[in-house]
């Protein structure tokens, strides 16, 4: 059986309170839950913390799932809610910290300009960051496809969408990615040319 294939009997048992089945269910799902969180969480939020929050909710609320078939989309909703809640907390924390320690000035003097960041990125980081900048409708299936062995069908079950929609979104998302990366390359080359011209002049 494939890692992501969850048998209905296991889900049913977990819903009924079987701890062993619930553990099995979690182990089979936690990687794609991680990918869903990556698609929805604020950038600075810690993935492990969010996964723990989701794990807690799974324990508390699994009995509220009525249909085994609805389990994956339910778990995705739990993950998205955890990511959104973290987003709200992060915003509140950032605001209160700004007020507390006057970090507006610190932010202004932050040396992390685009040039410095770009220089530090390796190619996979650059692609990953570009994926995160896609609209969520494209970002999420692409990230889920990055979870090893997750098929279009399994992604469709998580997102509750037909396979044709999944493959169209993945294909279009990749097209957007290529265009985005090509645009970044062009901009970088333009900057390098300007720098070279300024150095030569």
């Amino acid at each position, binding site marked *: 059986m494939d890692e992501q294939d969850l048998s209905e009997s296991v889900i049913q048992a977990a819903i009924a309170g079987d701890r062993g089945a619930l*553990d099995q269910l979690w182990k089979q799902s936690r990687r794609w839950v991680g990918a869903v969180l990556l698609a929805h969480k604020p950038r600075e939020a810690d993935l492990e913390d969010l996964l723990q929050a989701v794990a807690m909710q799974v324990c508390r609320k699994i009995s509220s799932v009525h249909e085994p078939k609805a389990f994956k989309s339910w778990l995705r909703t739990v993950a998205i809610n955890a990511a959104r809640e973290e987003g709200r907390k992060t915003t509140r924390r950032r605001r209160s910290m700004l007020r507390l320690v006057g970090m507006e000035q610190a932010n202004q003097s932050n040396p992390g300009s685009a040039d410095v960041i770009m220089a530090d990125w390796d190619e996979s980081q650059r692609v990953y960051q570009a994926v995160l900048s896609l609209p969520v409708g494209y970002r999420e299936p692409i990230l889920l496809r990055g979870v090893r062995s997750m098929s279009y069908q399994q992604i469709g079950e998580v997102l509750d969408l037909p396979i044709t929609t999944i493959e169209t979104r993945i294909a279009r998302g990749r097209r957007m990615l290529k265009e985005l990366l090509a645009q970044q390359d062009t901009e970088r080359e333009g900057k390098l040319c300007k720098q070279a011209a300024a150095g030569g002049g």
Partner: protein
Amino acid sequence: MRTNESNEQPTIRLSGDERDVLVARVVDGAATNTDWTTFRTLAAHDPSIWSELADTQQIHELMSQRVQSEIAAADRIELPGGLIDDRPMRARLDLVSRWGGWAAAAAILMVWFFGQPISTMALDEHDSAAAGLLGSRILLDQAKPDQAFDQYLSSGQSLGRVVGEMPERIVIETRPMPNGTIEVLYLRQIIERQVIDHAYREVRDEAGNVIPVPVELSPTVERAF
């Protein structure tokens, strides 16, 4: 998809989306026999599809590498021990959510009426009781921060002023220090209680001014915390 079989070899014209989907299926191992035939036919007339395939494959591989490394953290996350029956907690959270708005209004109200920080007010009010409780303990000006804090909690609880401390500490920031240690900035959350005579809700008038509006509450609990 349109085919043109007037030449010796059939040619195929695909829309942008169809072409992207075809390449995606090949990269993702989801191509059917028909897809492969289409791909070969297309490639015979338009070799640029090979570089499209290579670019897509490379992007997918780079992205997958990164995603795998990011979500590796998931393998360390186990479910918390034991199934948790959270009905009592949910009931309490419901209570808190019902009162959350009033708590904020009440805080404003207290400042409005007393005009001084709550903590000093409470100590003044219960000065003698607090002094009695603290008598057998370390004097505050000699206590270390943790000792002073523990004394605040225990005397506050004895006087009914402090309900308790939330177990979770909220990490705001962690910073590695030059000497190899890590500086952690975090919030500790204390739940305090105060009995007030009136509650006010904060509303804004047409000009945006904040106006306190009295709120009438009917009792919903038999006794205090």
